[in-house]
């Protein structure tokens, strides 16, 4: 059984369709990442799950209950905002205790129980020595933990996280990502994490929901989404540098720069498709060489190749080389809709 069941969910702001028909079920204990460019509706979707926005149409179920019309406090969800939204005038203890105090009448617990809960979650997140501090006296990483502690103290059915890592500096972020994943796994909480950062999404998500223009483009494991994109948007949105897309007569096809290598390096040259590749510029990136050029017959379409540095083959600018891609690494897309199509349908017989 799923924890959250969303069906036919829409949110229109006047003419803008922020969320335009979303169906999604979230499984217990999973780490679900909603990934998409800014303005794709991912934050609006999360705010509707939290109850901060009222849907234009559709329904949201959490557990057994239809919560579509319920206010946030009756949904059993909690949320960590991008800014952490700590109450600046309260110390850490009171910040974490705030949701408990707010729900005290419904949940009926006394002061001692409350203190016990706050201290337990603070210990778990290793902020139990900071309880008397004010938010401004904390580092970015500590603030994040306080925000998570406050969200977790009520033992919510779902924890919603709105880009909580984007306020941390790059060095701290990798560490915080790791801790967050550990914490989610050990507490077995169902987490929904919104981000526009594909590396965060790939690293954290048990499943990823890719959104664009208010619609879900694809739902799947990170590997599935990367290796088997449902359409051209997903194919080009994930991966850096993004997938090369080339035009053919009645369709488009694409392959990732790291799959585009000199023919001699292909494991299985007989099962590959060859291209004449004209090298225009080479960037040395340490672990890889990033090559800018174009393939024969597609002189107007910039095509990139990412060649590992341990490949010593000479690749000089203004020269032409024979490059190839494994057949299964070429994806075909419908000309009008951008949906994935099979190689046979594309009429490709390399």
């Amino acid at each position: 059984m799923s924890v959250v069941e969303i069906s036919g969910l829409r949110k229109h702001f006047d003419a803008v369709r922020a969320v335009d028909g979303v169906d999604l079920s979230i499984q217990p204990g999973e780490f679900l990442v909603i990934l998409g460019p800014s303005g794709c509706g991912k934050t609006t979707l999360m705010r509707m799950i939290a109850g901060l926005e009222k849907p234009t149409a559709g329904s949201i179920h959490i557990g057994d209950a239809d919560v579509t019309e319920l206010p946030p406090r009756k949904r059993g969800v909690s949320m960590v905002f991008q800014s952490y939204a700590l109450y600046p005038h309260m110390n850490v203890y009171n910040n974490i205790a705030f949701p408990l105090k707010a729900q005290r009448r419904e949940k009926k617990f006394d002061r001692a129980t409350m203190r016990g809960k706050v201290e337990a979650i603070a210990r778990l997140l290793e902020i139990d020595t900071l309880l008397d501090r004010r938010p401004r006296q904390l580092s970015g990483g500590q603030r994040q933990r306080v925000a998570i502690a406050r969200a977790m103290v009520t033992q919510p059915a779902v924890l919603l996280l709105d880009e909580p890592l984007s306020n941390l500096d790059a060095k701290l972020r990798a560490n915080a990502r790791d801790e967050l994943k550990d914490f989610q796994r050990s507490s077995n909480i169902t987490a929904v994490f919104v981000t526009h950062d594909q590396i965060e999404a790939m690293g954290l998500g048990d499943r990823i929901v890719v959104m664009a223009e208010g619609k879900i483009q694809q739902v799947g494991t990170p590997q599935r989404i990367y290796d088997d994109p449902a359409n051209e948007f997903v194919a080009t949105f994930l991966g850096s540098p993004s997938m090369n897309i080339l035009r053919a007569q009645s369709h488009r096809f694409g392959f990732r720069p790291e799959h585009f290598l000199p023919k001699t390096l292909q494991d299985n040259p007989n099962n590959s498709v060859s291209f004449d590749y004209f090298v225009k510029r080479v960037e040395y990136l340490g672990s890889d060489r990033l090559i800018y050029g174009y393939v024969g017959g597609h002189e107007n379409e910039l095509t990139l190749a990412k060649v590992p540095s341990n490949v010593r083959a000479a690749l000089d600018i203004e020269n032409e080389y024979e490059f190839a891609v494994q057949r299964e690494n070429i994806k075909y897309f419908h000309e009008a809709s951008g949906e994935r199509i099979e190689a046979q349908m594309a009429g490709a017989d390399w």
Partner: protein
Amino acid sequence: MGRLSLGSFPLDNRRLIGALFLTPALLYIVLLVGFPFILSIAFGFSDVTVGNTDLSFVGFRNFLAVWENDIFRQVFETTIRFTLISQVFILIFANILAVIFTQDFTGKWFARFIFILPWATPVSLAMIGWLWMLDTKYSSIDYLLLQLGLLGRGGLLSDNRNLFWLAAPDLAQISVIFVQVWRMTPLATVILMAGLSSIPTDILDQAEVDGSRFMRTLLQIKLPLILPIMVIALLFSMITMFGDMTVVYVLTRGGPVDYTRVLGLYSFQVGIEGGNLAQGAAISLFAFPLLLAMAIFMLRTASRAEVR
């Protein structure tokens, strides 16, 4: 020319343009605040009158004379009492109205506009309006009460056809305080509204997800966060009111007897109408150290409460 020469045009000179931008403010402060202030200090320590404008130094004689004057003491006490009582009401009303005006409802723009009018109207004009409404004989408020049967023969409030708003000691004081509250609440409200809308929406959304309802969010989140701004609003309206004379000058001239005489008016009556410039100056200067101490104290409190 190899590069753009920035110093060629006179207005590109940083020092010149800086001076140019500061001059109007500086002129205003020096001519309309600084000069009269220095002059009143000079007057306060001299024996100047309207008839004899020679300034000769007399030390603290004016201040001592004023302090030993029973009328002055009563005026001083009235001023403080009026100011404090009206601040309480201003704060309560301003908080309620600011919360209302920062909610979403239809006609909000119009309601805000109507509401700001008391503050946007010139004080003297507004006071003439109030003078009519509170008139001893032709008061429109009395007329309404009369129609409702609360005044006149067998009326609940009085058998008389009038309440004598500005002539009865208690009612006159209440009227003056009420009009002051009416006049000062909009400014305090606007300042508090600015404070409320400066609270990050994330914080309020967080409070909502945390399960907090309206009153808890108001008392435990919103009000503590706008406390520093509330102190500023209070300071503004207190200082304005403490030195004000227009309201009582138009409505009561300090009467009946001395019941509504406040510091600003008394200083004007002694100094200008009575011609004793030196004593008038000394009276108005009595408020200065008090207001200064209050301003320092409140601004310190505000900056200490500043948490963001």
